[in-house]
């Protein structure tokens, strides 16, 4: 899949006429930082990295690649966890990091116009003086780009109440594979025609290059309260989540951690987590003072009824930050327990939480690898962290198999293989489990409407039917396994 030297020379010659030499990287040394994204287990070097800083340049770069049939992989900040921005050996990386300006903030319509390379947190920082913020807050928000967020439909701790990226953007501009600039969505609440804005969100750089985004801003909540509850049984914590929702309350955030995760986070962040608990729940409530007071009473009562044995209510900003510090540092904290860890991202119906955690611990015994569970319990989005050592022969393979088992389990119980990290390069085989050949064919049909030669991030996100057939993966429909009687690991 490498480029022939003729095409490569023509390509580099054309690209050098579009951007100055410092923004066209071709030496191995300069390319190496782009060899992987946040999932460093997969690495490849591209032919070149191009770093434009205006839309016209993007259009010309895309046109040049399109004419020469050279694959293009867009890249934001490279924090993706599914190998979405993994380079193509025969293609270029189109880096959007220089598109880093917030173009305007509209305090009347509560929107901001931003370039794709702007960091997620920078939007909230720019909006703060106006009492506004951008709601989706992936844990990577200090680093990840808003363009990458749109391409992955990123979520965060607060998306249970405030939605994912798709519910928090109004308009984007994209450059299509033939270099055309299109505006999708609008500055109003709806747009005539098909909802291409939604289609583009989460499309992992496979349908177009996102070059401008209009995000929605929200007024900062007047008040915030955080509750922490500990449980003797994981199952009880899982039930408590459903009970809170049954009370008619949608918390701003509802997170759960299991014992290994609690221990790791406590050792790292000293958040005062109870070390003897089987699981803890962190519940954040926000809104107007009066409404909040009412909700705290209901949630506390509900947690008690659900057998929480210790409830801490943090009212001051410092106490709240401390409780969150443990959760937010859970990944690096787990990272200290083991040379490597592999972060999974399935979503399951909430009622399956206890069952799935039980199965994960069985898988853990079976594969002989430890696992810590940190997750967005409110929306059933699991992040099991599988601990392994890449230097030990075969452990990466075992970790991958363990991860695949978890994802297939998620599909089996009626969930999905990815809640927010995307399919990318990593989960492509599990797509064969979640979707039937007819469904995958439909995805290819959509892809070809936008990108007939498959030059935009080729080989990612949607597996070919051929690949699925070779893998012999079983498509699980509505949680019904083809052969339920066969024991599976």
């Amino acid at each position, binding site marked *: 899949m490498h480029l022939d030297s003729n095409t490569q020379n023509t390509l580099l010659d054309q690209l050098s006429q579009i951007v100055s030499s410092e923004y066209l990287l071709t030496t191995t040394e300069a390319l190496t930082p782009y060899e992987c994204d946040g999932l460093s287990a997969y690495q490849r070097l591209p032919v070149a990295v191009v770093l434009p800083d205006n839309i016209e340049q993007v259009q010309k770069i895309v046109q040049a690649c399109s004419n020469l049939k050279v694959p293009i992989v867009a890249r934001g900040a490279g924090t993706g966890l599914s190998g979405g921005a993994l380079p193509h050996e025969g293609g270029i990386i189109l880096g959007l990091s220089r598109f880093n300006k917030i173009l305007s903030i509209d305090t009347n319509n509560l929107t901001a116009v931003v370039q794709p390379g702007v960091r997620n947190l920078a939007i909230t920082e720019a909006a703060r003086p106006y009492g506004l913020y951008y709601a989706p807050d992936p844990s990577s928000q200090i680093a990840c780009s808003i363009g990458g967020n749109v391409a992955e439909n990123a979520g965060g701790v607060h998306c249970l109440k405030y939605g994912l990226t798709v519910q928090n953007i109004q308009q984007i501009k994209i450059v299509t594979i033939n270099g055309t600039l299109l505006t999708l969505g609008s500055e109003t*609440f709806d747009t005539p025609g098909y909802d291409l804005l939604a289609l583009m969100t989460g499309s992992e750089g496979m*349908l177009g290059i996102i070059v401008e985004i209009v995000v929605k801003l929200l007024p900062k*909540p*007047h008040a915030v309260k955080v509750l922490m509850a500990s449980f003797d049984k994981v199952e009880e914590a899982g039930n408590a989540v459903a009970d809170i929702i049954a009370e008619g309350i949608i918390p701003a955030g509802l997170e759960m951690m299991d014992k290994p995760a609690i221990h790791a986070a406590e050792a790292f962040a000293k958040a005062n987590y109870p070390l003897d608990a089987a699981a803890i729940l962190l519940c954040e409530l926000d809104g107007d003072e009066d409404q909040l007071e009412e909700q705290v009473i209901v949630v506390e009562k509900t947690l008690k009824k659900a057998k929480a044995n210790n409830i801490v209510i943090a009212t001051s900003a410092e106490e709240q930050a401390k409780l969150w510090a443990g959760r937010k540092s859970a990944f690096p904290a787990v990272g200290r327990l083991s040379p490597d860890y592999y972060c999974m991202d399935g979503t399951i*119906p909430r009622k399956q939480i206890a069952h799935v955690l039980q199965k994960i611990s069985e898988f853990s015994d079976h594969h002989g690898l430890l696992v810590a569970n940190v997750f967005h319990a409110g929306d*059933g989005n699991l992040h099991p962290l599988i601990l392994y050592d890449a230097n030990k022969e075969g452990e990466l393979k075992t970790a991958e198999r363990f991860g695949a088992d978890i994802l297939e389990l998620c599909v089996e119980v009626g969930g*999905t293989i990815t809640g927010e990290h995307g399919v990318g390069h990593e989960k492509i085989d599990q797509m064969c489990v979640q979707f039937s050949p*007819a469904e995958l064919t439909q995805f290819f049909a959509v892809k070809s409407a936008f990108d007939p030669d498959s030059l935009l991030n080729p080989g990612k996100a*949607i597996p070919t039917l051929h690949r699925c057939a070779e893998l012999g993966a079983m498509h699980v429909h509505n949680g019904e396994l083809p052969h339920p009687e066969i024991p599976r690991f």
Partner: protein
Amino acid sequence: MKIKDNDISTSLQQQVKSAINDKKSLCIQGGKSKLFFGNRFDAELLDLSQHTGIISYEPTELCITVRAGTKLSELEALLAENNQILPFEPPHYLFTDKDGTTHNTATIGGAIATGISGPRRAYTGSARDAILGVEIINGDGEIVSFGGQVMKNVAGYDLSRLMVRSQGTLGILLSVSIKLLPKPANDLTLSFDATQDQALAVFQALRVQQLPITASVWYNNTVSLRLSASELILKTSHTRLNTFLNDKFPALSSAKADNKSTSFWQEIRDHTHPFFTLTDKPVWRLSLPPATQSISQIDDAIAQKGDAPEPSQLIEWGGAQRWIHSRTPANIIHNLAQSHGGYASFFYNKGADDETFPALAPELFKIHQQLKRKMDPHGIFNPNKMYQGL
């Protein structure tokens, strides 16, 4: 609420396959409540109204999966029993038969296919925001599913959201999974007098106030706000609203509780309010950035002589949705909406043969055609309904 469990997907699939074989196109019909919406075209009728029933519903999952022909009225009654609601408050409209009797027959499939959202939309999101998954018959006559029943799901392209507002042109919805919200304990409607300019200024200032507002209307020089919360919070919110009005808009009188609440919002939602029923002029819907200034003067200037002096505008969604009666030529209204950064649709065209939706930019329309061709290769689903040539 008992909803009839009737799965006719095999027969529907058969009809689609025959249509493909016979090279005939289909007119997908749900509850006949939106006969006025979209272009007329020639096609064989495919009736979804018998494909009904709840496939799965567990209130604590905040999600329901329901067959497309299920009536909105029955679905909402079931949700109400469990203290839940559809976040986007879909309009039912009504189907009027030959002898003039009206029927509340709107289906969830039609609500999703048209993607029309009601009064709550500006506060709790639209139909497309709430959709989690779909099962469809695709253009090859196969039954396929996209999305699912969980809130977070990014596996594959988001074809469930693409189905919303596609007006039945990309596939037949067999069932949909929808995100639900808890039903607020109580509603309170508060009203006060205001000119259009004043109303828009109030809406503007309220955007950052964090009152539990779930609907807003300005009509006939009156602002009506619906607040939804517990009895106690409604009481404090009423006081807070009046303090706010007093501080920021001393010229306005304070807001009073209005007891016609439920029926009023239903009339606004279903267009049975006099604004919609009493006029003989075409009704336009303008979708605008919410902070768009008052456009009444422009409308007055283009109003024809002899028009009755009835109030010609009704504003919803804090300014983002504006309904206008007008005989002004379509191109002028489209330009007017576009000049404010929005768009206009010809909602009730009263016999005029202009298209419902405004023209798309040529490059954008080309992508629409490519997508339609890929999703519906035989061109059988509601051809020309949304746009000629789509």
